[in-house]
């Protein structure tokens, strides 16, 4: 390992793009910079991913590609109403149709005990998960699953589902947090009582929880400020937008064992939640995670797995359920719409004196909107003694919200980073300079209490300030440049990994983390680094829940960090065993054998890993090691954007001219896939900023539930997304890894809003900043 200063170390092997779209020439700088602080042999290189050939030839098997012999196909009947009582469900006609094998409703599920269940990224009440899987007595959103059918094929299943007669009594519905919080609002859940400041109250409410964090004296801070800015912001509901719809095949075998194949970010979560809903021991359920076609947090919840299992139990055959795109939009977790107020005060010398925020997020039908993480992140980039943050988790008649990449943080940053920008502007300070004067650092106390360990907020801001993009001139009228900062904690949770050494010197790596973006390779590379062999000599496999130790979700930017750490630890055990094997060969003690870069040596003898592996049978038998981790050294990640836009004042259309994503990732194990995370998160943020939104009709139904009308960015909407990887090593990880998956989606909406403000003077307080919204603001300002 060597150490160097913050200088560009390596750049992408990809060729520089030919200029198009009138984009600025960028031959004066590198499109993809890595500001490396540590270098290794394998970690930090760019091998071809292990599952690559399968994925470019169509051979990789995703959930919907699996059809077992004798499979029945299912369909789910969903509520047409946003809020209604179910008076009755008549399935008799559907059950008698030719080709129909079974129908299930909530009555077929065991009654939900009222207890907490871990759903991947925290606990929730089992009754909520249960009620979301199949509506019980009431539907709480359009798209809420009501009944399901298993039939000969999906066409017959769909026809039968539509033949189920449900008698609904429609109720008033609420689409936004402020509406549902109104004192006279009808309760979505008659048994919901507000939790306040961590205590359960007896107040019936659509506010599931009110969090409050405070430090110092906010009133005094504002009183002592020369500039105070306060604004309110709203953001629309958006969807994660993975291209692969949810799918599952379940086989409840005649021996009582349930086998589930599905597209999930967490096979063990599916196993454990299904076990609780169906009241079957976890040991009776095997979950095989198929290849996953995107998730971004939205494939953590369990939706159809228990339903497919019930249909299989009724029919004795495998049952496959695949959602339509409309089902995905109306039946699965969008990310919450939000209502956020932010107030910032600062003195003329550019020091922030007080920070205050109130956040109300739409949880959807069941509590759990990730408003608390929003509140924890809202001011995370700033070092200020006087803070006050209030968060409200509000149930509304929309699909139960799910995690979406740094869940909760993007909405918060859209508000906070615009107010910060406005304060800087009023003080006559450069927005990056203002942020640097107030940047969070090691020891800064976050709103919710914890003090930061080593973080890279200042380094990210430095990289922005020093980036050629930040100094480049804008080239025309109605153009503007914006910056913003984002933060996400990242998580550790639990992971397992097994290494089996083959006699040809390769190593099979067995792990349980769904590979959503190249993590087989980033995990294998960490084992390779320890073993001193090539990344290609490790052969990683993601396996089912019977075949590997417990592993938490692929989420929270944790997979390369935590499962990679398990691979590192397992590899260290292999090295220890290999030293013992070499010692046996040379009749010395194991501690007399040294290991460096895959070569074992002692007293002039040396042997390579491959040769030693070939002799395993003679030195004591197969070499295999397993490690499990529950890491504590989680390192949060800061990100920032520099974005140039051009606003068409005639139409309100915003074009992204140039975009640079900067992020502290600790250590980029595979820089190409790290860049890919930064680029992908940035573009999801651009879509959230400019186009994406659930259009809800007056009756609370979604009016744009197709990929034509819910418009996600296409290749034509975008320039190249430049990246700058900052590496401030996380002292809590063997290779300094922090995790990269999430913080990158946080700053884009705010950075784009700040750029629009610079371009045309309009302060955008609502997402999306679609052409009509921008046009209206421009006309007003």
């Amino acid at each position, binding site marked *: 390992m060597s150490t160097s200063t913050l200088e560009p170390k390596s750049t992408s092997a990809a*060729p520089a793009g030919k200029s198009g779209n009138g984009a600025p020439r960028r031959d004066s700088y590198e499109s993809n910079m890595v500001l490396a602080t540590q270098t290794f042999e394998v970690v930090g290189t760019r091998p071809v991913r292990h599952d690559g050939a399968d994925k470019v030839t169509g051979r990789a098997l995703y959930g919907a590609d699996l059809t077992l012999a004798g499979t029945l196909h299912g369909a789910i009947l969903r509520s047409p109403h946003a809020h209604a009582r179910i008076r009755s469900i008549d399935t008799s006609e559907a059950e008698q149709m030719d080709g129909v094998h079974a129908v299930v409703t909530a009555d077929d599920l065991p009654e939900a005990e009222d207890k907490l269940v871990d759903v991947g990224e925290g606990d929730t009440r089992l009754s909520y998960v249960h009620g979301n899987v199949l509506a019980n007595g009431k539907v709480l959103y359009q798209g809420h699953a009501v009944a399901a059918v298993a039939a000969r094929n999906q066409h017959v299943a769909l026809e039968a589902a539509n033949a189920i007669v449900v008698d609904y009594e429609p109720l008033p519905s609420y689409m936004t947090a402020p509406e549902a919080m109104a004192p006279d609002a009808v309760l979505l859940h008659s048994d919901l009582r507000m939790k306040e400041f961590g205590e359960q109250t007896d107040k019936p409410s659509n506010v599931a929880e009110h969090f409050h964090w405070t430090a110092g004296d906010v009133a005094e801070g504002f009183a002592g400020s020369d500039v105070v800015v306060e604004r309110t912001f709203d953001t629309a509901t958006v969807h994660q937008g993975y291209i*692969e719809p949810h799918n599952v095949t379940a086989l409840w075998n005649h021996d009582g064992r349930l086998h589930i194949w599905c597209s999930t970010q967490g096979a063990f979560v599916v196993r454990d939640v299904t076990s609780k809903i169906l009241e079957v021991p976890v040991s009776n359920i095997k979950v095989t995670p198929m290849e996953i076609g*995107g998730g971004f947090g939205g494939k953590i919840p369990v939706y159809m797995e228990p339903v497919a299992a019930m249909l299989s139990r009724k029919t004795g055959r495998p049952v496959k359920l695949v959602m339509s795109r409309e089902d995905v939009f109306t039946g699965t977790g969008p990310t919450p719409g939000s209502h956020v107020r932010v107030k910032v005060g600062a003195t003329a010398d550019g020091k922030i004196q007080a920070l205050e925020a109130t956040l109300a997020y739409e949880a959807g039908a069941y509590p759990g909107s990730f408003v608390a993480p929003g509140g924890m992140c809202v001011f995370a980039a700033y070092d200020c003694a006087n803070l006050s943050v209030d968060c409200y988790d509000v149930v509304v008649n929309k699909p139960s919200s799910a995690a979406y990449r740094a869940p909760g943080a993007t909405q918060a940053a859209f508000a906070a980073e615009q107010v910060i920008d406005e304060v800087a502007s009023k003080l006559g300070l450069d927005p990056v300079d203002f942020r640097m004067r107030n940047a969070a650092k090691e020891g800064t106390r976050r709103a919710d209490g914890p003090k930061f360990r080593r973080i890279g907020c200042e380094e990210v801001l430095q990289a922005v300030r020093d980036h050629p993009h930040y100094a480049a001139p804008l080239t025309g009228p109605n153009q503007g440049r914006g910056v913003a900062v984002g933060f996400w904690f990242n998580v550790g949770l639990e992971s397992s990994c097994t290494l089996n050494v083959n006699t040809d010197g390769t190593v099979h790596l067995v792990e349980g983390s769904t590979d959503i973006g190249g993590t087989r390779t980033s995990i294998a590379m960490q084992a390779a680094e320890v073993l001193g062999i090539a990344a290609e000599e490790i052969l990683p496999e993601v396996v089912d829940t019977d075949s590997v130790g417990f592993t938490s979700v692929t989420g929270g930017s944790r997979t390369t960090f935590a499962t990679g750490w398990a691979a590192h630890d397992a590899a260290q055990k292999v090295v220890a065993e290999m030293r013992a094997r070499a010692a046996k060969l040379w009749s010395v003690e194991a501690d007399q054998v040294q290991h460096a870069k895959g070569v074992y040596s002692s007293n002039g003898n040396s042997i390579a890993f491959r040769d030693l592996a070939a002799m395993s049978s003679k030195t004591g038998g197969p070499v295999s090691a397993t490690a499990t981790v529950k890491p504590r050294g989680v390192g949060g990640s800061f990100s920032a954007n520099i974005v140039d836009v051009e606003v068409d004042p005639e139409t309100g259309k915003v074009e992204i001219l140039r975009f640079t994503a900067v992020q502290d990732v600790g250590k980029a194990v595979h820089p190409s896939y790290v860049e*890919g995370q930064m680029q992908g998160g940035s573009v999801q943020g651009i879509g959230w900023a400019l186009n994406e939104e659930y259009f809800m009709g007056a009756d609370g139904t979604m009016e744009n539930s197709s990929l034509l009308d819910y418009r996600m960015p*296409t290749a034509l909407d975008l320039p190249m997304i430049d990246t700058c990887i900052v590496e401030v090593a996380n002292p809590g990880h063997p290779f300094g890894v922090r995790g990269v998956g999430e913080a990158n989606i946080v700053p884009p909406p705010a950075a784009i809003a700040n750029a629009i403000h610079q371009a045309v003077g309009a302060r955008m307080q609502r997402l999306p900043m679609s052409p009509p919204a921008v046009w209206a603001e421009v006309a007003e300002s």
Partner: protein
Amino acid sequence: MQSIHVRTKINGQAAEFLCEPRQSLLEVLRDVLRLTGTKEGCNDGNCGACTVEMDGRIVPACLVLGAEAEGADILTIEGIAQGSALHEIQSAFLEGAALQCGVCTPGFIVASKALLDSNPDPSEEEIRFWLANNLCRCTGYDKIVRSVQAAAEKMQQEATS
């Protein structure tokens, strides 16, 4: 419902199948012929995951009826590699890290091949315009566009050498 007997050519091989009148080409490819490399993302022509080439044009297989494949010449992702050799576009996608989850990748590769077959030296804007029918939610398109550029360069070098 009476099945229709369809004779077609898929990936250079004669293929026959029976399908219901309501079945799309996508359903036939995936469920009848088990060519599951062609993916379903929306089933209404808006995501491009099921892009196949049909008589020299790229089409979303979900908007073509199985019965319409009668007499057609169809190329799917399974027919892009030649024997054990990957197509330059496939290699470029691997070298350029142009995929993350990989579910949109077959559609992008089929579409990109059709682009380079008709326009061997496309500009960045031509690539972006051509691929605007294909949605990718993971990559932000940057590495996809660069990989198509890299493949074009390589293919041109090979053509002139």
